[in-house]
């Protein structure tokens, strides 16, 4: 892989929309991904992650919008575009009656891996996914974790530019999850990877970019750094030995929102501006006994709930779907 290829745009989707009758499952989703990046699609169940991925892989035609894979339009030239994608759907498409090697060879042939290179491709995919000793086993007799790995091996067998994994770690034990995450990081080095999940720490562990979907719409799209900033810029945690009433703290911090974590610890959510200095001054002047002051990193869960519930106060608030929390 040459250096110029590193920043090459591999996936570009513009305002993808998909309706089922009057119900719009995905609304106006756009995303861009470069080689060497891992994008995490995050969202509660039913947010439209799978639908988005199906559109990106040509399994579902978007009602409107455009997908380009390495500059090739997926709708105009589906065959060329699809040959650059590896896709692991939510349910791995496994033929249970085949052996692992047979199945991987089939997947390789379907993706036009040339015959001389096929055996090597099978071995490499098997080795990368930790299936080295499983070649002769029937897929139907493997455990769920191993079947999931066969699914991933199938998606990378033709060394695609873009790898799309729909909930790749579902149903795996913690050790396997760690291995798969390492594998994804590995793959992300010279491919583009899109993975969907509703496990929040997973995103921080493996992704470079995050897109949070809720009710078919993008509610957050940034780099992991941006997400951390978003979490950090939100709140301060302050510890006081002689805490005054909450209203006093709020007044000192320019009318910030204050909630008590316990008798001495408070979380301060500023409403614009940085109240740190004001809080320190007030504490010294009035003898509150300040012993702790730190940015309260909102947990990813909190960010998530916050983002997805903001939506709920909006116009779509009374259409009852599952709640985000």
């Amino acid at each position, binding site marked *: 892989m040459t250096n110029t290829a590193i920043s090459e745009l591999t996936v570009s989707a513009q305002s993808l929309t998909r309706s089922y009758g009057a119900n719009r499952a995905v609304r106006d989703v756009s995303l861009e991904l470069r080689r060497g990046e891992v994008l995490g699609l995050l969202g509660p169940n039913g947010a439209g992650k799978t639908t988005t991925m199906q559109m990106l*892989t040509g399994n579902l035609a978007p009602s409107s919008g455009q997908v380009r894979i390495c500059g090739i339009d997926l709708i105009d030239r589906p065959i060329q575009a699809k040959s650059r994608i590896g*896709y692991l759907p939510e349910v791995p498409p496994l033929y249970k009656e085949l052996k692992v090697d047979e199945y991987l060879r089939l*997947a390789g042939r*379907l993706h*036009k891996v040339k015959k001389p290179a096929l055996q090597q491709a099978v071995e490499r995919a098997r080795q990368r996914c930790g299936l080295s000793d499983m070649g002769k086993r029937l897929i139907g007799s493997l455990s769920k974790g191993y079947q999931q790995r066969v699914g991933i091996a199938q998606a990378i067998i033709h060394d695609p530019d873009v790898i799309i994994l729909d909930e790749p770690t579902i149903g795996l034990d913690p050790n396997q999850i760690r291995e798969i995450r390492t594998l994804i990081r590995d793959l992300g080095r010279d491919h583009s990877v899109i993975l969907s999940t509703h496990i929040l720490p997973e995103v921080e562990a493996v992704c470079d970019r995050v897109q949070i979907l809720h009710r078919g719409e993008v509610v957050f799209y940034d780099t992991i750094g941006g997400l951390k900033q978003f979490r950090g810029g939100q709140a301060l945690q302050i510890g006081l030995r002689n805490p005054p009433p909450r209203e006093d703290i709020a007044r000192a911090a320019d009318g910030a929102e204050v909630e008590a974590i316990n008798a001495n610890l408070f979380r301060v959510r500023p409403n614009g501006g940085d109240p740190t200095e004001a809080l320190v001054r007030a504490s010294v002047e009035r003898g509150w006994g300040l012993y702790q002051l730190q940015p309260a990193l909102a947990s990813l869960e909190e960010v998530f709930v916050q983002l997805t519930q903001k939506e709920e106060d909006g116009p779509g608030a009374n259409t009852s779907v599952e709640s985000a929390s």
Partner: protein
Amino acid sequence: MIRTIIGKELRSLFTSPLAWVVLAFLQIILGWIFLTRVDYFLTVQAQLARVPNAPGLTEIVVVPLFGIASIVLLMSVPLLTMRLVAEERRNQTMTLLISAPLSMTQIVLGKYFATVIFLALVGGLIVLMGLSLLPGGKLDAGLIATNLVGLLLLTGSFAAIGLFVSCLTTHPVVAAVGTLAAFLVLWLINIATSDPASPLHLLSLLKHFESFINGSIAVTDLIYFVLLIAVFLILSIRRLDADRLRA
């Protein structure tokens, strides 16, 4: 690429017991009919020798085999075609084919030709049984050939219809029952039509197959089968494409 799909379909056909059961069942019935016809031929052989233009070994022994095979296959093709698409949908393995760089046409043709190859195997078995008579008598090669072509076209039409019905549902059993119903309608439509001039006769599979049994290949019959196969294959392709649009 079509070859890859054909190979995959044949492999999954022969790893399931279904294909073997169908072949065994067919062979038992055909073998039994074959022996009774040979027996019959031996008893009437002396009388036949005195009749001018009498039916020969081929007419008495081999041709009935094709007739029986057509009926047994009418019953068993739905079982073979039901899984083609319905089961892949059910197991969600269709995604592997759709995500691969293949056109819908390649997928449909691959699945169709795999079934046709299996059915050709059945035709081949019948021809082999007929050939086993060669040491004891003379066979009419032309008649056997037209029968074989007729059987292939007939079962090829069965396969195309079965494939299409399989594209309509996610339940293999529903596909099998639906396919069988479609066959019976096409098979019986001329028996149910009393008016001999009715255009419904043109639709009957049996009617068009009969002339092949009698040893003649008419262009109209050929066109009927080819059109029928083409129409159902195109419908299958369109149906699978519509899946992507509607889902």
